């Protein structure tokens, strides 16, 4: 079997197979308190310290909707180009597990808050692709079970129980692992821009289940799919989809397609395989019925309009604007808008210095620095305005690119105005031709063998001359000027 990476086709011996994938993404709603109780909805508190009586499923307790969560969900729906339903209903999804204190999850079944929408993917080659969203609904999160803390007891932490979730369900439009990755990254960018979710897969504030099936290329049928649950990084989602699709193809090609049962599976990144979960998880009748403790949720057109008007500039719009305003490539633009803080940083820099150079410096030099120091752009050691000034010094011919890198290093430890640093360290570029000419004349005199080499056609020896000039000027000579004078004098 071989895979063509351009359009993800799995070539089997009998058929060519394409992947059909839909993603269900659970995003924890960023809010002060939980969806139906007053307990704090933050992450990282001591176990069972953020638990109200309702979250613990105590007798007689009742849910009351948190309006802030509803606003977050509506804002998210609007930024997904989706229809917001004026009237939606909550339902009880019934099953028993130790971390589900009520014995049912309050969710939304037939009448979710958000209808169909679209996510636009930024592909690595600069193109875009639309992935349809079927719906989004609100529901509560369960607590966390820990089975490995004690030989014969399981521990349950209910801090997470009751936290609001937005479950975003895509259509089965995804065809390649790359698309899945791009989908998750775009979704993460959107919810972070809107401020409705932290989007941290490693912390669990964003979780992804992948539904995977395959079919022969050209077919439009939907074959049996398997759900790979709770994969906690974008990279693992991509790997899991690849591995699961291959598993299906192998079975179909061997005539054992009936062994593919609609079921839930776990991805093991260490072994590079998916495994079936305990079978009792698979045969669930959730007995959904309308939640009798809550009234239908009504969201007025006025509220929708009000929230829409106050949305920040969203990733896709910002990407377009960067392309138009700063003349960036779609790829560069996509990289810069992925994080709202990066985009804002970039705009400050690009207003001072050349936009293209600014993009380069940020995505290469600055990102490398941040990674090294384990910082984010929000607490970047170098401020945007200073970086902008630095880049302008290059285009103004005050310093060379090479010197600029030195100044950059200095700024990383002491975020001063680069002009001051250049001044203090005497790093100004030497453009004075007479000084350079003098040095070159001396070099020509003192190394006639190199001059001879050049005349014999070994033009690479120019590099030696340039190196010597740089050495003698502590790197401050303007390379362009040096090269010009050398060419004049050596020819």
């Amino acid at each position, binding site marked *: 079997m071989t895979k063509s990476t351009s359009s993800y086709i799995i070539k089997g011996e009998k058929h060519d197979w394409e992947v059909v994938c839909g993603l269900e993404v659970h995003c924890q709603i960023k809010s002060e308190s939980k969806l139906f109780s007053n307990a704090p909805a933050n992450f990282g508190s001591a176990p069972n310290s953020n638990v109200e009586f309702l979250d613990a499923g105590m007798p007689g307790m009742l849910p*009351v909707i948190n309006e802030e969560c509803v606003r977050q969900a509506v804002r998210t729906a609007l930024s997904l180009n989706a229809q917001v339903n004026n009237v939606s209903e909550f339902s009880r999804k019934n099953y028993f597990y130790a971390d589900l204190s009520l014995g049912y999850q309050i969710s939304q079944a037939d009448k979710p808050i958000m209808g169909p929408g679209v996510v636009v993917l930024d592909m690595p080659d600069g193109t875009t692709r639309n992935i349809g969203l079927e719906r989004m609904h609100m529901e509560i999160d369960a607590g966390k079970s820990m089975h490995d803390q004690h030989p014969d007891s399981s521990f349950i932490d209910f801090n997470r129980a009751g936290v609001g979730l937005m479950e975003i369900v895509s259509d089965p439009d995804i065809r390649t692992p790359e698309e899945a990755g791009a989908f998750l990254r775009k979704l993460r960018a959107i919810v972070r821009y809107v401020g409705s979710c932290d989007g941290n897969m490693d912390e669990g504030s964003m979780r992804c289940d992948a539904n995977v099936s395959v079919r022969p290329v050209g077919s439009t049928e939907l074959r049996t799919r398997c759900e790979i649950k709770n994969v906690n990084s974008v990279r693992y989602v991509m790997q899991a989809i690849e591995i699961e699709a291959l598993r299906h193809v192998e079975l179909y090609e061997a005539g054992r397609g009936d062994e593919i049962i609609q079921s839930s599976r776990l991805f093991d990144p260490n072994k590079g395989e998916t495994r079936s979960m305990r079978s009792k998880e698979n045969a669930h009748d959730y007995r959904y019925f309308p939640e*009798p403790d809550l009234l239908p949720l009504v969201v007025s057109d006025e509220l929708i309009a009000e929230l829409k008007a106050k949305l920040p500039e969203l990733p896709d719009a910002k990407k377009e604007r960067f392309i138009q305003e700063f003349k960036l490539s779609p790829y560069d633009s996509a990289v810069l808008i992925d994080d709202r803080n990066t985009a804002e940083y970039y705009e400050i820099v690009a207003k001072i210095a050349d936009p293209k150079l600014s993009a380069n410096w940020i995505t290469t030099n600055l990102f490398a620095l941040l990674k090294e120091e384990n910082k984010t752009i929000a607490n970047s050691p170098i401020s945007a305005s200073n970086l902008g000034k630095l880049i302008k010094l290059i285009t103004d011919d005050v310093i060379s690119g090479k010197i600029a890198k030195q100044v950059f290093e200095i700024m990383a430890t002491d975020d001063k105005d680069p002009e001051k640093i250049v001044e203090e360290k005497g790093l100004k570029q030497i453009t004075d031709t007479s000084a350079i000419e003098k040095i070159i004349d001396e070099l020509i005199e003192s190394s006639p063998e190199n001059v001879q080499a050049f005349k014999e056609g070994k033009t690479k020896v120019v590099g030696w001359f340039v190196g010597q000039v740089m050495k003698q000027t502590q790197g401050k000579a303007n390379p362009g000027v040096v090269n010009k004078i050398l060419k004049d004098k050596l020819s």
Partner: protein
Amino acid sequence: MDQVRNSLKKGEFSAVELAKSYIQAMEKNRDLNAFITETSEIALKQAEESDKRIKAGNAGLMEGMPIAIKDLFCTKGVRTTASSKILENFIPEYESTVTSNLFSQGAVMLGKVACDEFAMGSTTLTSFFGTVKSPWKDQKGEYTVPGGSSGGSSTAVSGFMAIGATGTDTGGSIRQPASFTGLVGAKPTYGRCSRWGTIAFASSLDQAGPMTRTVRDSAIMLEAMAGYDQKDSTSANRDVPCFENAIGKSVKGMRIGIPKEYRVDGLNEEISKEWDRIAQILKDAGAELVDISLATTKYAGPVYYIIAPAEASANLSRYDGVRFGFRADGPFDNLDDMYLKTRSQGFGDEVQRRILMGTYVLSSGFYDAYFTKAQKVRRLIAEDFKQAFEKVDAILTPSSPSSAYTIGKEPKDPLEMYLSDIFTIPASMAGLPAMNVPTNLDSNGLPLGMQLISKHFDENTMFSLASVIEEAVDFQLNPNGLKE
């Protein structure tokens, strides 16, 4: 209560003295087994505080009134069991809104009284804490059931062990026990009383209400219990009128509906005659009797026994032995094993029966045929009443097809037992306020009562009519099963 109120105000006796006399009555009639948990110390402390407030002129609506609390209301720091083994030792850390309201109006808590387990039943015989005997004995001198599910409440009040008691009514659990024991029992409009902190049976039906010896007491106590609660999303955001003002008001010109469908085949002759007698009383008082038809009446029972168990099956899922309450003895093979053993041992037969029924009607393949259908019919039942109330201001029916069963001779077939609710269920399905007024004794010497149903949030009308009936019938509450 109005007499007690006056006496307390005048200083004829103190709240502490009053509480002490009721505590004595409670102790004397322990054999009736109404109380699961007695809270005499708390009662005396509360009574002391009441005396202070009365002296300062700050008396609340229920100041100093010693009441019993159905063990379905969570009382902070005081054991709350729902009459179930699975909550045998459960002590809530929160106070239900209804009891909180009563205490802030000065009520004094004598104790928690028994009920059918998780409010499921019509006799209180399913209580884990043993048989509750009504203070009324039949002609043969045998004890009768106090009705259900609020049987501990009805025993306490008709046995003069409390001046009033809280009950809850889902399909008739206040009205029927009131009828069996000769009390006034009122179920207000759905949403009048907050359900926060009240152990849930069927969320869309449950309502708290007072059980008292007079109509005026019922009005006073309901006003104290009711009120909007933002912690309950189904709570009605409506002002609570002073219901006491409705007592003694003229009912001249009121139109009283007599629904023909309640005259069922084989209806007890005495009850049928009593119904006519009370209708005549209202006519004599100036009301107009109107024959009406509530064609959906016969569907109310089946619909109730689909919807209520369905909601209950989910409401009772939280009783799983994980976080509180009873957990069976281990070791366990796995989590499911723990659940099975805990819930099989912790729940009684009737509760298990209803959980199974509820799970069944919600399960895939049956949901549409049962649950969806039942909800549709429920809307029709509500519509039936709505149309009737365009022609009438209130409806008069019997409360129960029989008087109290002798203990040991109650219907053994659960389905037959379910028929005891046929008169009370329809009003519950429509969320309408309804109450029982005791009117007479039957040939067995046991109480009979009539039911009044009025429009949404129009409890005033039913209190006015009840007050007229009460005055005319002059029912004597003198049960023969009490210790001297």
